[in-house]
């Protein structure tokens, strides 16, 4: 094991991977989207002119192929572009007086360059009604949607550009979990063989994992503030990880407090196994059965369900590998320094 940790090839592998994920992860544009809409009320029975601002789109270039429509359940209302300037547009929608299936209208735009993009639940009917009577033409037949001509990351509401944090914040936790699994393995090996380097390995893997856990929490807090609105929303996953990290902190304190060398090692190893089980329960099991803001928990749509699409995957998987390799690199340096330290102390005795 020590031989692999001292080998250099996997450490150098992390360098191109990190360059790749930082460059690709930051420079690749996110999909076209509607960033703001200047009103949220529409009047039924009138022609409504809606002014929108879009992001990463080519509205003006693709003006000739632009289509817009409002969608309410199965009903489509076709719009007419009255003005297009750069990435903003004004669209007129004749909205017939009739009963609509749903309360909210989705706004959908399509053109040849950007493909189809939408703003869900964009508009809501006002209290008053207009007097114009339109024939209720369902223009669904004319609707033609197409894919974007560009390769992009998904543009999700609220997340927007911060979806790129998937390659940074989420990977901190993956690096932490892999280090903790390594630590668990070392503890089991120590219990089997009783060789001291295994104990040192388990201990320092936990120390490194705590550093990455702290980074995961800090980066998560910043991300949460600007997407969920608070640095520490009352979320089972956040509280769970805090408890789990305190359990590991207890491991570090426990290991430091025992005096007798072999007793200390065995006690720490057994507690490490216990702490790992606790960690898994608090991070994966409990949030799964309660409602959490995090994706993939408690019925919340997971990234993996529809949004961890191929464009995110080709950066996300290398990112997990890259950050994990970097974490193990840092850990191996820490370990080797500590092993030299222990050698020195042994020589003193």
């Amino acid at each position, binding site marked *: 094991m020590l031989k692999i940790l001292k080998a250099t090839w996997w450490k150098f592998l992390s360098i191109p991977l990190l360059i790749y994920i*930082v460059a690709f992860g*930051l*420079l*690749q*544009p*996110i999909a076209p989207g509607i*960033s703001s809409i200047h009103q949220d009320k529409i009047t039924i029975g009138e022609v409504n002119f809606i002014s929108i601002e879009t*992001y*990463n789109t080519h509205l003006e270039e693709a003006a000739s192929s632009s289509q817009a429509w409002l969608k309410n359940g199965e009903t489509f209302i076709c719009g007419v572009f009255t003005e297009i300037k750069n990435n903003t547009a004004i669209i007129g929608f004749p909205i017939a007086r009739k009963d609509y299936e749903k309360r909210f209208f989705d706004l959908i735009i399509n053109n040849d360059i950007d493909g189809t993009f939408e703003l869900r639940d964009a508009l809501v009917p006002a209290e008053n009604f207009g007097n114009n009577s339109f024939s209720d033409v369902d223009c669904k037949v004319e609707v033609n949607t197409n894919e974007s001509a560009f390769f992009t990351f998904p543009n999700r509401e609220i*997340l*927007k*550009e*911060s979806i*790129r*944090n998937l390659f*940074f*914040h989420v990977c*901190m936790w993956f690096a932490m979990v892999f280090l903790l699994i390594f630590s668990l393995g070392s503890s089991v090996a120590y219990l089997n063989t009783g060789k001291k380097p295994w104990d040192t390995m388990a201990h320092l893997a936990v120390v*490194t994992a705590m*550093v*990455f856990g*702290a*980074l995961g929490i*800090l*980066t998560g807090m*910043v*991300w949460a*503030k*600007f*997407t969920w609105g608070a640095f520490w929303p009352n979320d089972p996953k956040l509280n769970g990880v805090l408890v789990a990290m305190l359990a590991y902190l207890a491991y570090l304190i426990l290991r430091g407090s025992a005096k007798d060398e072999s007793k200390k090692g065995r006690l720490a190893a057994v507690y490490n196994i216990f702490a790992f089980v606790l960690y898994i329960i608090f991070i994966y099991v409990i949030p799964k059965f309660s409602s959490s803001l995090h994706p993939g928990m408690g019925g919340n749509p997971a990234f993996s369900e529809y949004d961890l699409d191929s464009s995110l995957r080709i950066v996300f998987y290398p990112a997990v590998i890259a950050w994990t390799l*970097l974490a193990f690199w*840092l850990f191996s*340096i*820490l370990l080797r*320094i*500590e092993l*030299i*330290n222990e050698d*020195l102390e042994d020589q003193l005795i």
Partner: protein
Amino acid sequence: MNILSILTVLLLEASNTSSVGAESWMYGGEKFYVVFVVILIIFFGIFTFLILLERKLSKIEHQIKER
């Protein structure tokens, strides 16, 4: 894409945040700055770890020299 322009705007906006409040600029650029700050935090974290290694190593160097 306009990442480069976002970065220049970042520098400009960082210099005059006083009127809008210190946090609100993070919402700009379609929340791109959030990623920027997250990367900064990770950088600081890794450098903190390096300083920790540095200190441990100096201590050992000192011990070896003493003997």
